[in-house]
């Protein structure tokens, strides 16, 4: 059943249960205005929500009930037992309908006209000063009561919310249903968020303790605690999963207001728009859900306002009169993807260009060389709006830049594709949970810090006999990395830790990316990747912009999490960010075409070759004696499978580097003589995909053949997950 309806049912059941008691109390104490208000509110909510959800029967009963209750509240009608009975009857009817919805998914059929006419009689009677008792309920029975419900009409454009029209079947079956205990109500339980958070903390602590125990147990040879410990291990893992699940909520919760918003925009602008929502059940961390709610609403409103054209315009373009906005959420590789697309007019290139010129963001000459895709990206600039006029819905220029920064704040990213007259698609990639972030643990001066992995683009070893060395320009450390100069920040100096200069000391550069700007962080040691639970930094340490939070590691120690944007600010490189963005845009103009990272290596014939790095899954070293022959092919055992090796020449070397390619779930290895470097190549690799060479390009002044890894992987083995 639809999540929204489900939630509505849960809520309604709860409030109805309260109402029973309230009504009985009211009978004994008819003057209690607080009670009347409480009852009024519940019925009012049911009326409003049922209208919004397209449940006309429920809506009209609640509507009439509310009318009468309104009279009680305004003291225009004295509360008598007869009236209370009537209200109770209305509430019973509401319960029946709700049970019907629970069992069939739609409103049960049934005739409420008698009840409604009674309620109306009371309502009108009071208005006209006529007292009416419940003993003569049929007084207005003959009156024709059209079921006018303004809300039912309003809900109509929102039909695509997957609310079915009332199920028309089995005549009186539903009305005959006794007001049995609601099933949904007994299946869900409302729990205070704070209780859940506490539970989460306790479970994290339990996990830590278990890890410590396991660590200790590993050093014991034979021990009678091993078996119970193993069981504890499983139970704790299960418990952790369970508690994590309680934080998850369906994304549909963040969408519940959208049909109404789209409907309002459409009505105001005279458009016809269908909103289709898919994947509402996709679950997200509660905290993230809260944070993407506003950006999503903004974007859907944008699509309705700017994207979808007026009906006449659409017909002239040969599209159907009704525009379509699609919201789709699904899982992809540890992330949630939210797709917002419309079949509207797309981003108007000319208008954006004019706006860019007007605001001086680029020159006409620059624009001429920019690909359309890049020009469209300007909508993410602060204060950029192409709306002709400011409507009540959008066009104030507070927009996509805020959306982007909100999404980036939770570690997500946003992509956009737009074709003029065809429509626009936004892809938002968000992490499953905020609470757990995969981080790189680094060390300086015997202290450990975490760097969020999402900001780390690579690690370079410097000093000692490494090919990379830190150079100083008037005390400012820099690194030459593939022809580019990378500014460096010494974490030691930044944190004011004691340090001694030692040129030969082996250090590591954590190449960190903040938006478009790359810089290197000099650290002494690099430890492991660790999944960490981020905890907010103490109020008293908020002034330290260098840290974004702290966390408890597996061994129970607390460490600080570094915040790369904060580091940039602290190191005084903030200005560079803007420049880098511009520089990158300029670079894209000169070196049009995609940026390709290539792995350079000497193949077994000592020829310089390159391979696209996104196809390379790992670099390994192999001992030649481990290579076996199977089915006439040279293979090696890798992760419990036989993986074919190509380019394998027998010579006297004992160990040789292996490049492991992965395409989907197929793995294959290519033997090399030497792995050289990683280089960037701007441009498309044009060769066919079936040949052995993708393209021949010039990298670092040398001609290199880029091999086609697909050639190997298609002959590779399929790795299955549970083999």
């Amino acid at each position, binding site marked *: 059943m639809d999540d929204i309806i489900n939630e509505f049912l849960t809520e309604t059941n709860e409030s109805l249960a309260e109402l029973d008691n309230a009504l009985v109390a009211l009978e004994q104490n008819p003057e209690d205005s607080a009670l009347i208000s409480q009852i009024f509110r519940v019925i009012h909510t049911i009326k409003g929500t049922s209208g919004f959800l397209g449940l006309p029967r429920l809506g009209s009963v609640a509507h009439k009930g509310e009318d009468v209750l309104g009279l009680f509240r305004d003291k225009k009608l004295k509360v008598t037992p007869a009236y209370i009975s009537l209200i109770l009857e209305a509430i019973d009817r509401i319960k029946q309908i709700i049970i019907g919805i629970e069992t069939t998914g739609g409103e049960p059929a049934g005739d409420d006209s008698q009840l409604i006419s009674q309620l109306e009689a009371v309502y009108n009677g009071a208005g006209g000063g006529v007292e009416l008792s419940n003993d003569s309920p049929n007084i207005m029975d003959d009156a024709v009561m059209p079921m006018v419900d303004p809300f039912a009409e309003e809900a109509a454009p929102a039909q695509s919310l997957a609310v079915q029209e009332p199920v028309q079947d089995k005549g009186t079956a539903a009305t005959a249903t006794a007001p049995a205990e609601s099933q949904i109500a007994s299946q869900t339980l409302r729990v205070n968020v704070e209780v859940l958070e506490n539970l989460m903390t306790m479970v994290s602590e339990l996990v830590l303790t278990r890890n410590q125990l396991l660590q200790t147990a590993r050093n014991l040879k034979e021990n009678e605690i091993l078996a119970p410990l193993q069981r504890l291990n499983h139970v704790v893992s299960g418990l952790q999963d369970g508690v994590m699940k309680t934080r998850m909520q369906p994304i549909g919760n963040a969408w519940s207001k959208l049909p109404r918003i789209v409907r309002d925009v459409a009505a105001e602008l005279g458009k016809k728009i269908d909103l289709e929502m898919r994947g509402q059940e996709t679950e997200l961390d509660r905290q993230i859900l809260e944070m993407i709610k506003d950006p999503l609403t903004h974007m859907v409103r944008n699509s309705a306002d700017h994207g979808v054209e007026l009906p006449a315009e659409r017909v002239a373009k040969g599209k159907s009169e009704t525009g379509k906005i699609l919201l789709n959420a699904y899982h992809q590789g540890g992330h949630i993807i939210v797709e917002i697309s419309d079949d509207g007019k797309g981003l108007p290139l000319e208008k954006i260009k004019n706006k860019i010129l007007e605001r001086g963001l680029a020159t006409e000459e620059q624009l001429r060389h920019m690909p359309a895709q890049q020009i469209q990206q300007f909508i993410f600039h602060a204060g950029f709006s192409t709306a002709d006029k400011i409507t009540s819905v959008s066009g104030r220029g507070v927009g996509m830049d805020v959306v982007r920064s909100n999404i980036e704040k939770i570690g997500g990213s946003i992509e956009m594709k737009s074709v003029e007259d065809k429509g626009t698609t936004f892809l938002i990639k968000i992490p499953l949970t905020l609470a757990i972030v995969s981080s790189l643990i680094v060390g300086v001066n015997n*202290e450990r810090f975490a760097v969020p992995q999402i900001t780390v683009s690579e690690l370079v070893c410097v000093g000692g006999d490494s090919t990379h060395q830190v150079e100083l320009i008037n005390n400012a450390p820099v690194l030459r990395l593939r022809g580019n100069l990378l500014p460096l920040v010494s974490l030691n100096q930044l944190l004011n830790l004691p340090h001694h200069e030692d040129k030969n000391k082996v250090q590591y550069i954590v190449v960190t990316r903040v938006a478009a700007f790359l810089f290197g962080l000099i650290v002494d040691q690099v430890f492991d990747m660790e999944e960490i639970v981020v905890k907010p930094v*103490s109020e008293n340490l908020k002034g330290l912009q*260098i840290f974004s939070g702290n966390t408890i590691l597996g061994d*129970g120690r*607390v*460490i*600080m999490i570094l915040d790369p944007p904060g580091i940039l600010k602290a190191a005084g490189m903030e200005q560079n960010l803007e420049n880098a963005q511009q520089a990158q845009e300029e670079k894209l103009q000169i070196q049009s075409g995609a940026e390709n990272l290539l792995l350079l290596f000497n193949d077994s014939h000592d020829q310089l070759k390159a391979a696209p790095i996104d196809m390379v899954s790992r670099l390994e070293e192999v001992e030649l004696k481990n290579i076996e022959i199977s089915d006439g092919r040279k293979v090696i055992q890798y992760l419990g499978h036989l993986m074919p090796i190509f380019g394998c020449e027998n010579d006297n070397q004992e160990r040789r580097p292996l490049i492991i390619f992965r395409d989907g779930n197929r793995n294959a290895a290519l033997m090399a003589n030497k792995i050289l470097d990683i280089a960037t190549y701007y441009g498309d690799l044009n060769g066919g995909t079936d040949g052995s060479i993708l393209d021949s390009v010039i990298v670092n002044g040398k001609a290199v053949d880029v091999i086609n890894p697909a050639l190997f992987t298609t002959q590779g083995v399929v790795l299955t997950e549970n083999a």
Partner: protein
Amino acid sequence: MALLDTDEQQFLSFYMGDHVFGIPIFQVQDILHTQQLTHVPLAADFIEGIMNLRGRIVTAINFRKRLHYSEVGGSNTMSIVLEHKDELFSLIVDDVGEVLNLSTDKIEVPPYTLNPAWREVATGVFQLQDKIMILLNPHALLQINGGQK
């Protein structure tokens, strides 16, 4: 009975050098031997570090440094864990004494000659037999901007 009397308050006493301090008992969460701390670079010097207490992160504050009391204390310190605005703090002190019931009407205003740094955090003083106990306001004590050096 005295416990329930409204005009009596319970204070945990603790020591720093020759001085004795009191802190309202209902704000004290734990008393610990000094734990292993993680140093927080760039933080104010009285922030000794952070630590893990049953899955919650505790900011450890060196009471001597917080009160600008220069004499070096013994190495055998104790930590008093307090909750302030949903956060945990641990106050590193020389030693922890007993819990005292003090009648509120005997609590006096701190003398005006008291060092301003101390006056800021003191709510009153109480005359013990041999010493004068300084009663602390934990909120004033923990209302600090530790991010600035």
